[in-house]
């Protein structure tokens, strides 16, 4: 069930250049049943910035009633958020949307997790869950450069991990797709999150017989009411079909959406 809660900041730290990791505590955590879901949060108590910001859930600790998110401080909202300190409160709405189906990979199978930039965070909880049920995970993480990279060791602790940076300052030079191709990485299922151009390229790799991608779009309500975040389904004879990224997604089956 969707809840709105004033959650308490447990910790916040800058883990890479302008990249923040924030852990929040509250009863809302009980409702998070799947990796890849997101929260819609008010970055400040003030009237401005007005709108909520959608941020993915990167790690869940049900026993502590905590979840962690990782975000880039860029505009007014995320910058305000980055000023919060342990003990402060954040108005969180969530959990929202449909996440990554862990059940799509069977124990013993291999899952290929491909993330780009701030699309990497939700793959972390996904990888933890997959590993818990005995799925082997291969991670391919793309970043702009070394300064912007994060969580590479955390992923490495869970499975084989490749890093690609645009400028080659960390891992291999190039895009995540270059890395997948170069190493001939394959899996039984792939999961991906990142910029749309990347997801498009990832779908074309056909690195697994089935896959799931997580999309981003500018949002109003975050719950499916305002039609701000629609996308076209791949199959749409009438031209009026649509999917809402906030409530039908953000995770869709590869091939389901016209990218």
């Amino acid at each position, binding site marked *: *069930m*969707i809840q*709105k809660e004033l959650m308490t900041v447990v910790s916040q730290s800058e883990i890479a250049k302008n990249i923040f990791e924030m852990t929040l505590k509250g009863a809302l955590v009980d409702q998070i049943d799947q990796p890849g879901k997101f929260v819609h949060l*008010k970055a400040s108590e003030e*009237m*401005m*910035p*007005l*709108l*909520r910001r959608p941020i993915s859930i990167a790690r869940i600790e049900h026993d502590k009633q905590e979840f962690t998110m990782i975000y880039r401080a860029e505009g*007014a*909202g995320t910058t305000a958020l980055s000023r919060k300190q342990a003990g402060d409160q954040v108005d969180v*709405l969530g959990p929202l949307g449909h996440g990554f189906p862990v059940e799509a990979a069977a124990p013993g199978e291999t899952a290929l997790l491909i993330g780009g930039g701030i699309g990497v965070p939700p793959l972390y909880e996904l990888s933890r869950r997959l590993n818990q049920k005995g799925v082997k995970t291969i991670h391919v993480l793309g970043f702009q450069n070394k300064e912007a990279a994060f969580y590479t060791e955390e992923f490495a602790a869970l499975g084989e991990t490749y890093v690609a940076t645009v400028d080659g300052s960390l891992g291999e030079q190039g895009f995540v797709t270059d890395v997948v191709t170069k190493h001939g990485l394959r899996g039984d299922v792939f999961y991906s999150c990142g910029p749309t151009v990347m997801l498009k390229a990832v779908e074309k790799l056909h690195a697994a017989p089935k896959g799931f991608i997580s999309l981003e*779009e*500018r*949002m*109003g*309500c*975050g*719950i*499916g*009411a*305002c*039609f*701000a*975040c*629609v*996308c*076209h389904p791949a199959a749409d004879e*009438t*031209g*009026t*079909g*649509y999917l809402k990224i906030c*409530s039908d997604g953000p995770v869709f089956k590869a091939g389901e959406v016209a990218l």
Partner: protein
Amino acid sequence: MNRLALELPGLSLKNPVMPASGCFGFGREFSQLFDLSTLGSIMIKATTEAPRYGNATPRVAETPGGMLNAIGLQNPGLERVIANELEWLKQFDVPIIANVAGSQTEDYVQVAKEISKVENVHALELNISCPNVKTGGIAFGTVPETAKELTKHVKEVSEVPVYVKLSPNVTNIVEMAKAVEDGGADGITMINTLIGMRIDLKTGRPVLSNRTGGLSGPAVKPVAVRMVYEVSQQTNLPIIGMGGISTVEDIIEFSLAGADAFAIGTANFVNPFVCPELIAELDQYLEAHNVDHISELKGRSWK
């Protein structure tokens, strides 16, 4: 004592607070959060005859104290709105105001005729002011004579009272209000969004794919209050006021300006529980200020 119950043409309202059209879909999503029967009414998303996908994304952008939207009247079309959405809404004890849109008179007439027959639709809201569709729409809302004629045609076929939603993007709002009053409107809802724009400094291009969009939220409240103040003094029609309402003080301000009832748009995105919260707070506010009924405050700023 019931300080909030209100009778308006076609509408027996438990309270004068309702979500504004386009900010609440058809209620399904919000029904997960609270009981829709607590609302005074629901102004459903604009309905057109044929299904519409609307504009390309991005469709929303943030501005200082407000937001821009260019949804483009996306909706599943008259037939499905009646069969799926209005049918589903019947489980709630809440009168529906159906927001009707189109590109030409015939479209409006057709939608109005059919949708006004639906049992839980107690009033229509003629959307002659959507700034986000190219053909028609906005023209109906900026030319008095056109607005009057459209109102007349819709009145002829509608089985329920007709409220006309005014656009703030006009030189003379009173003239528009009088025109729709002449056309036979039973009430006015105001304001729709102001036309605005944001440019993305990185790309150098407009943030919205539709380029311009409708500005709403707290930033526009002074414009909305001013227009309600002017129109309420110059027409005899009841007014459902909106534009930047997010607190009980905002509701009181609209009431003092001359509004009978109050619609909440953008604030639903900031706090999805805002409507039921405001209903409770409004009751408390009136009690604390010894006001027996919300209507006592109406137009006090000019009376």
